[in-house]
């Protein structure tokens, strides 16, 4: 009888920790000016190193790698939580409309900011405000007689996302070419504008979300059986759902505010891990944090390096790399008869 033992949990997480460390080293080394892996790691572990390479790594690449890791981890943890809460393996962190609200806030500033006298610094603030407002709307609109039903949540999210995209198109057509390009980059998701003063709030919100999701990870297993079944087994379902939704909404809001709509990470990282590690959320939640961070850091390194002299939005890389990887994993599991 194969069940999750603490020893396996520790072993898998340690292995994924090493993967993340490797990804960070790659993220620090790759880029327009080449730095060797050894130099990059040297800067990471030795605060006293100096020279142009150390400067690039410490001042330019380290904040960006940190932002990538935090955004990737936030989106993946939010994805795995939403998939369990909505009892749907196809759910992603953007499905509930929180991202749509954040995007609307961000795009509003990108397109009208000049006229209102707001700089680029206001974009993440407005985006996070949009995420919070959507979350409030979601709790208000989807709650029926004190219960948050999965279908109502999903429908509310789908409707709100459609509304937000329409509003975004409207706002984008008000602005000029320059605004149009920055809106496009933002909607496809990129880390180029992730500034280092955003790292602390991003890290704090990620830590808060993880601190809520980790102790509730076994509860997520039960919630995926359905609300009534979980309640039968002694879980305070409605409280657990609200805590999880609120915490992950903060994570998604923070991630989108910093990087725009980086798609695919929150869908395929949890999904791929479930194919490899099984569906137990006690392992899946922390594993998603580590693997999501590693995945986005490597994708961003690729986004900075594949075209000489220019940079791709990382959102394009996640979909390009993630799609085939995911299909390959799924085919392999199907051949082994592990999934229906």
């Amino acid at each position: 009888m194969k069940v999750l033992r603490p020893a396996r949990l520790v072993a898998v997480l340690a292995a994924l920790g090493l993967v993340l460390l490797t990804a960070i080293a790659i993220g620090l080394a790759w880029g327009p000016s080449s730095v060797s892996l050894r130099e990059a790691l040297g800067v990471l572990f030795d605060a006293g190193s100096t020279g142009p390479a150390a400067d690039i790594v410490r001042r330019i690449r380290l904040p960006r790698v940190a932002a990538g890791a935090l955004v990737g981890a936030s989106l993946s943890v939010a994805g795995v939580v939403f998939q369990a809460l909505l009892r749907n393996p196809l759910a992603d962190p953007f499905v509930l409309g929180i991202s749509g609200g954040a995007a609307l806030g961000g795009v509003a500033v990108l397109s009208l900011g000049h006229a209102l006298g707001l700089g680029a610094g206001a974009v993440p603030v407005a985006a996070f405000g949009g995420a919070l407002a959507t979350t409030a709307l979601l709790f208000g609109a989807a709650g029926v007689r004190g219960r948050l039903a999965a279908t109502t949540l999903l429908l509310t999210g789908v409707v709100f996302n459609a509304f937000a995209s329409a509003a975004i198109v409207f706002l984008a057509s008000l602005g000029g070419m320059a605004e149009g390009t920055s809106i496009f980059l933002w909607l496809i998701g990129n880390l180029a504008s992730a500034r280092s003063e955003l790292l602390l709030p991003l890290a704090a919100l990620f830590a808060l979300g993880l601190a809520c999701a980790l102790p509730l990870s076994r509860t997520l297993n039960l919630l995926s059986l359905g609300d009534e079944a979980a309640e039968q087994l002694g879980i305070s379902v409605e409280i657990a759902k609200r805590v999880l939704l609120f915490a992950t909404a903060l994570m998604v809001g923070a991630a989108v505010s910093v990087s725009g709509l980086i798609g695919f990470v929150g869908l395929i990282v949890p999904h791929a891990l479930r194919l490899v590690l099984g569906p137990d959320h006690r392992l899946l939640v922390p594993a998603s944090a580590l693997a999501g961070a590693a995945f986005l850091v490597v994708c961003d390194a690729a986004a900075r390096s594949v075209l000489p002299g220019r940079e791709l939005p990382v959102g394009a890389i996640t979909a390009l790399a993630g799609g085939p990887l995911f299909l390959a994993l799924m085919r392999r599991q199907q051949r082994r008869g592990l999934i229906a």
Partner: protein
Amino acid sequence: MELSGVAVRLGSRAVLAGVNLSVAPGEVVGLLGRNGAGKTTLLRVACGALAPDAGRVLLEGRALASTSRRERARSVALVPQDTQVPFPFSVAEVVLMGRTPHLGWLGFEGAHDLDVARAAMERMGIGALADRSVLTLSGGERQLAIVARALAQQPRLLLLDEPTAFLDLRHRLEVLTVVRELAAAGASALVVSHDLGVAARFCDRLVLLGDGRILASGPPREVLTPDLLRAAFGIEVELGFATDGVPVVVPRALAP
């Protein structure tokens, strides 16, 4: 377990209207009635998932509403009708979920929990399926896994909502034999069933529910009568008796 004067309204409809029902330790009670008669609602009240609008529910002498969810989950287990699982949990993992109300704060199952789960699977005859994904099981096998989960909960009251609906005859008898064994060990069970024959064979007492009220309650011989079944189901039946006196009901036609 004792329900007195239990009434439930959903919207403007009275689903249960003043139901009195008790299940004694060691007793297996069958709950019969047409679709929409209020059987599932009654089970939801009995397990605390639904608070009645009026009436009292006592569990072992204590008001059910005053117990914590965790306490309730340690004494009452429900086998629901719908057992869809969206993720590829293994059978063992699903059965171990039944240990939830007994686990400590860290949420890791100990050796005792594994033993209880293994015994529950063996008892339901699905020990060999322990490592199979529930997504690859047949409807009947999945149902057996859910019954095993309820057994792993080690409840003193077992509520079963049409537990045998997807099961072949052999598996039906297997489930109800296990229910009888639990009753012999002092637990009690309330079983919703549409299979009158199996209900008559395995239940000490049958309760016939119609439009939210109890139409009849008593030993199978007193409840499975043509008049009562016409009133409850709107059907004409032919009634016979097996060699040991258990009633056998054969449906004949719709009642005019």
